[in-house]
């Protein structure tokens, strides 16, 4: 019986009057890699924001290692060991590459990730450490964003659309690096538009449609037809 690390129960998330998630519920076990797929507006990013504390909810709607965390602020959630690689990278433009990484690590959690480890994973960042983060290419910026999240030595890492706006060749590089990251026993949730990519790196897939889960299944057994139905809602 694997250890459950994350549990979402009856999660309802709103933006003003607009409800983005409806009684969402699912569980993630330690070391599992779950792909979250779904069309634009299905609620994937809202789910990420709810888990990471950027959106606050009722405390019991998100549980981490059996502890209710739905009501915590993002900095408190981060301190518990949940890191988010945000959609669109969102580096700090006033900070150099290295400072972006250092600030990711300032929570001070122990673990395998350090500046050296990130530079070993992405050698190009070591060469550009003194540069302003905005002077890097999109792919390199994404590497900084991933490195920044790793620096906190999280137990759970959330990737929100890491291939968005990047050239296919860069996406290939980034996905080639993922097993080296997740292989450390880390639990990961990967939000991804590219279904082939999502299935290739995950053990389980979870499809959202209009704020509800329309499909869950093992990544290697779920069929394309099932995904198409769950994705678009066509019978």
């Amino acid at each position, binding site marked *: 019986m694997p250890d459950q690390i994350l549990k979402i129960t009856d999660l309802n998330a709103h933006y003003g009057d607009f409800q983005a998630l409806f009684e969402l519920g699912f569980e993630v076990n330690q070391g599992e890699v779950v792909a979250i797929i779904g069309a634009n507006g299905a609620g994937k990013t809202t789910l990420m924001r709810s888990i*990471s*504390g*950027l959106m606050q909810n009722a405390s019991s709607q998100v549980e981490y290692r059996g502890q209710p965390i739905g009501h915590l*602020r*993002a*900095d408190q959630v*981060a*301190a518990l060991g949940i*890191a*988010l690689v*945000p959609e669109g990278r*969102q580096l*700090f*433009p*006033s*900070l150099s590459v290295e*400072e972006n990484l*250092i*600030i*990711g690590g*300032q*929570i001070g959690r122990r673990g395998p990730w350090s500046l050296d480890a990130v530079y070993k994973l992405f050698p190009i960042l070591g060469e550009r450490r003194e540069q302003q983060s905005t002077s890097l290419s999109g792919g390199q910026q994404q590497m900084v964003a991933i490195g*920044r999240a790793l620096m*906190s030595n999280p137990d759970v890492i959330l990737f929100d659309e890491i291939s968005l706006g990047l050239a296919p060749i860069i996406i290939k590089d980034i996905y080639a690096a993922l097993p080296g990251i997740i292989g450390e026993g880390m639990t990961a949730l990967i939000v991804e538009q590219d279904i082939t990519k999502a299935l290739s790196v995950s053990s389980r897939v979870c499809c959202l449609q209009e704020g509800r889960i329309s499909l869950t299944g093992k990544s290697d057994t779920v069929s394309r037809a099932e995904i198409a139905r769950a994705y678009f809602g066509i019978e």
Partner: protein
Amino acid sequence: MIMEWLNALIQGTLLGGLYALFAAGLSLIFGVMRLVNIAHGDLIVLAAYLGLSVTTIMGLHPLLALAVVMPTMAIIGYLLQRIILNQTLGDDLLPPLLVTFGLSVILQNALLETYSADPQKMNAGALETASVSAGGLTLGVLPLLTFAIAVAVIAGLQWTFYRTALGRAFRAVSDNQEIAQLMGLNRRHVFGMAMALALAVTAVAGILLGIRTSFDPSIGGGRLIFGFEAVIIGGLGNLWGTLAGGVILGVAQTVGAKIDPGWQLLSGHIAFLIILAVRPNGLFPRMSG
């Protein structure tokens, strides 16, 4: 004749150091949290009065009183930010403007109740009249010291901003509050620290003001204007630019006063308006690393 103008130029430069101290805290706060603190001038006056109380009660020299006034102002700043100002921050710039305006009125009246409207002055003894002569010019030790302190404070702030973890947190929160929060930074605490640092600088400004001239509870608004003008001339978010802005303002005032004593303040404002018209972003916009 030339010496007289040169003298005005140098006196103005030294005066600019004081204006840069008025402005530095204002610049820091705007840079980190986009808050325009209308009460900044009154906080400078508050620091001067705190200095006055410390010097009279404890019998300390005003400069030594800084050891008490600086931490006091820093604590006031942290609490002010955490308890009141953080609640006003959001997408709208208006609430913090209104609240700090209200704070300005409250501070002025509280000072009036406590210390009366009589002009006060701190006694710094021989320091006030000491001077050095160089090449036919006589320079006051106090203005020289003020300018040196201003340079040291700006250099210290610059170092804090670009070389320390606190400064990194300031820049990160200024860039993107939400993502900074994801990095484990509590922005409310970071804002509190920024206001604490700003008011510690304000303490220095207030004490030096109180040694240089007499003050009363109503002069805060004028100091705020000088601070604003120095920040805008120098370019928002650039600390060395703020020092340059203070110097330009100081020189404009003393040169104006040299032409006609009545022109002192007016010529400072005119210099500000000209620079604003020609370079709306100030002389040295953006951060310099």
